C-alpha cells in the first residue's frame, strides 16, 4: 500500500472510530428525543471523550499508522486535537447551562448529582493535564515526571468520564451501547500497555552498546551505539529513534534523536546530540559499554521517500544531524546528484561537523554554504540568516526544481520558508522537519 492510500485508509478508520458513538446512540433502543442543544451538547461530550481515548493510540508509535504521515505530524496532531477535544468536552456542560440556566448548580464540583460531579472532575482533570503540557517548560516540570503524570491524569479523566456517562444513564440505559463506548476506551488504553510494557519487552531482545562518544563543536556530541548480537536497525536517512540508556528498556526516560550515520551501516548507529537539557547535558559522560535500547526508526523526513533530481538542504544548528545521515548515506551509495547545503549557526565555533562535511564535499557533488549569525572578523562567507538574498546568490536556477529539505528551530524554519517562497520554489518540493517533537 503506498503512503497516500495508507494515509487515507487510516484517516477513514480514525473518523469511523471517533464518530461511532453518535452512530451507536442512534440505533436500536433509543431514549426519547430531547431539544437540539441538549443532544448537541451530549454529542460533543461523546465525540470529545472518544477523541481523548484515541489519543492513547496516536502516541503509541504504531509504525503502520505513523508511517504514512511521519510520527512528528502524529504527535503534533495529538497536541492540536487534544485542545479541540477538551474544547468539545468543555462545550458539553456550557451548552447545557446556557440552554437551561437552572442547571448551573450541576457545575459545582462538590454539589450537584454524582453524575455531574464525575463529569466535572473528569473535565477538570483534562484541563489540568492540558495546562501541565502547555506550561511544562515554563514551570520546569521534569520531563519524565510530566510523562507519568500525563498518562496517569489521562487515564483518571477517561475513567471519570465513563462514570459520568454511566450515572447519567440516558443513552447508556441500553447496556451494550455503554459497552461499545467502554470497549473503544479500553482498546485505546491498551495502547498505553503496548507502549510501556509490550514494546519495551520486545526491545529487551535487541540491546545496543554505547561504543563511542565524540565531542563535536557547538556543545554537540556524536553518540555511537553498536548492535549486540543482532542485525541492528535499518532506517532511512533523516529518520530518528527514541534512545533509552541503562539495563531496563522499561524506563520512562527516553529521548528522540536523529541518526547522523549512514543508513548503510545498520549495526553501528550514530546520533548527533546537542547539550540542551538534563538528559543531553550529561550525554558526554555516559560510560562506554552502557546498554542502550532504541525505539525506531520513526519519521518521514527523508530523501529516500520520493524521487528528486537533486537536493537543497537547509540546516539550522543541530538541525544538521539528519542531513549528516543523508549526506553520508548518499556518499556511501556513490550518488552523483547535485546537492547544496545551507548551514546556519551562531558562530563558526558553534558549527558542528565541519570536518566531516569537508570530507563529504570530496565524495559528493556537494556545495556547502555556511551562514553565521556572528561571523569571525576574517569571515568571507555569508553572515546573518538564511534568507532570500543567500538563496539568490547560492541556489542556482536549476536548483529550484530540486527537493528542498529544511530542519532547524522554529524561527529558522519560518525564515527559510519565506525565503523559499520569495525564490519561487514550488511548495510541493519543500519538506520541513520541526524540533520540539516532545
Amino acid at each position, binding site marked *: 500500500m503506498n503512503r497516500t492510500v495508507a494515509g487515507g485508509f487510516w484517516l477513514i478508520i480514525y*473518523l469511523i472510530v*471517533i*464518530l461511532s458513538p*453518535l*452512530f451507536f*446512540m*442512534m*440505533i*436500536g*433502543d*433509543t*431514549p*426519547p*428525543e*430531547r*431539544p*437540539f*442543544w*441538549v*443532544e*448537541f451538547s*451530549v*454529542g*460533543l461530550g461523546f*465525540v470529545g471523550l472518544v*477523541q481523548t481515548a484515541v489519543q492513547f493510540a496516536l502516541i503509541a508509535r504504531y509504525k503502520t499508522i505513523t508511517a504514512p*504521515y*511521519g510520527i512528528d*505530524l502524529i504527535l*503534533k*496532531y495529538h497536541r*492540536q*486535537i487534544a485542545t*479541540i477535544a477538551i474544547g*468539545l468536552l468543555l462545550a458539553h456542560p456550557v451548552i*447545557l447551562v446556557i440552554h*437551561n440556566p*437552572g*442547571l*448551573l*448548580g*450541576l457545575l*459545582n464540583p*462538590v*454539589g*450537584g*448529582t454524582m*453524575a*455531574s460531579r464525575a463529569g466535572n472532575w473528569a473535565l477538570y482533570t483534562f484541563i489540568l493535564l492540558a495546562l501541565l503540557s502547555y506550561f511544562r517548560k515554563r514551570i520546569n516540570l521534569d520531563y519524565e515526571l510530566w510523562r507519568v503524570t500525563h498518562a496517569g491524569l489521562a487515564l483518571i479523566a477517561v475513567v471519570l468520564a465513563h462514570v459520568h456517562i454511566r450515572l*447519567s*444513564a*440516558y443513552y447508556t*440505559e441500553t447496556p451494550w451501547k455503554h459497552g461499545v463506548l467502554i470497549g473503544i476506551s479500553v482498546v485505546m488504553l491498551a495502547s498505553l500497555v503496548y507502549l510501556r510494557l509490550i514494546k519495551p519487552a520486545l526491545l529487551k531482545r535487541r540491546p545496543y552498546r554505547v561504543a563511542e562518544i565524540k565531542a563535536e563543536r557547538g556543545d554537540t556530541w556524536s553518540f555511537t551505539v553498536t548492535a549486540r548480537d543482532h542485525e541492528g536497525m535499518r532506517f532511512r536517512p533523516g529518520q530518528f529513534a527514541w534512545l533509552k540508556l541503562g539495563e531496563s528498556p522499561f524506563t520512562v526516560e527516553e529521548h528522540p534523536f536523529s541518526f547522523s550515520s549512514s543508513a548503510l551501516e545498520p549495526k553501528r548507529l550514530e546520533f548527533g546530540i546537542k547539550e540542551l537539557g538534563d538528559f543531553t547535558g550529561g550525554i558526554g559522560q555516559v560510560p562506554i559499554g552502557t546498554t542502550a535500547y532504541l525505539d525506531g526508526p520513526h519519521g*518521514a523526513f527523508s530523501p529516500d521517500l520520493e524521487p528528486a533530481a537533486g537536493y537543497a538542504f537547509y540546516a539550522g544548528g543541530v538541525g544538521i544531524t539528519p542531513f549528516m545521515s543523508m549526506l553520508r548515506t548518499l556518499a556511501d551509495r556513490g550518488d552523483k546528484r547535485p546537492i547544496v547545503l545551507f548551514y546556519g549557526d551562531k558562530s563558526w565555533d558553534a558549527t558542528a561537523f565541519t570536518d566531516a562535511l569537508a570530507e563529504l564535499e570530496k565524495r559528493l557533488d556537494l556545495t556547502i554554504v555556511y551562514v553565521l549569525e556572528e561571523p569571525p572578523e576574517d569571515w568571507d562567507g555569508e553572515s546573518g540568516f538564511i534568507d532570500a538574498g543567500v538563496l539568490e546568490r547560492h541556489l542556482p536556477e536549476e536548483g529550484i526544481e530540486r527537493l528542498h529539505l529544511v530542519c532547524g528551530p522554529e524561527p529558522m524554519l519560518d525564515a527559510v520558508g519565506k525565503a523559499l517562497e520569495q525564490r519561487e520554489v514550488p*511548495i*510541493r518540493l*519543500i*519538506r*520541513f522537519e*520541526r524540533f520540539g517533537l516532545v
Partner: protein
Amino acid sequence: MRHIYANRAAYLLAALLVVATALFAWLRSEGGTLVALDDDAPEVTEFDEVNGWAWRETGEQVFVADCQGCHVRLTHTPELFTAEGGRSYLIELVLFGFDGEMVIDGSARQVDHPAFAGHDDEQLAAVLNHVLVSWNNADELPEDPDLYLPDYIDEARDRELGPEEVAERRPSL
C-alpha cells in the same frame, strides 16, 4: 508542506466532528433513529386530567427540556409523594432547589438540585404530575392521589425557602 497540510487537516477534521455532531443532534431532536425506535414514552394513564386541567403535554415538554439531562427515570417519587410531608416537599424541591444530603437506594449522597422558580405554576405542576405517573409510577400511587394543580405551586411560592431548608424538610423513607 506536510505541516501546512497537516494544520489544515486538523482544522478540517475539527470542523467535521462539530458538523457531524450537529447532524446527530438534529436527527435526535427530531426523534430520528437509524434502526428501530422503541417507544419509551410514558404510558397514558387515567390521570391525564386533574380537575379538567390537561397537564400531560406540558409535563412531558418540561421534563424533556429541563429534567431529562440528569434524570432518565424517577421511580422513587411516588414513595416520596405518599410519605408524610412529601407532597409539599416535592413542590419545594422544584421551586427552591435542594442542597444537602439525600439517601437514595440506601446510600447517602450530597445533592445540589437546581431551583426552577422561574417556571410558571402550570409548568411545575405538570412536570411533577408527569413524574408521578410515568414509568409505571402510577401503579404506586394511592387510589385518589390528588395530583398537582397550578394553584398548589402558587401557594408554595410564599414559603421562600432556601435549598438547605428544603433538604431538611425531605421526608425519611
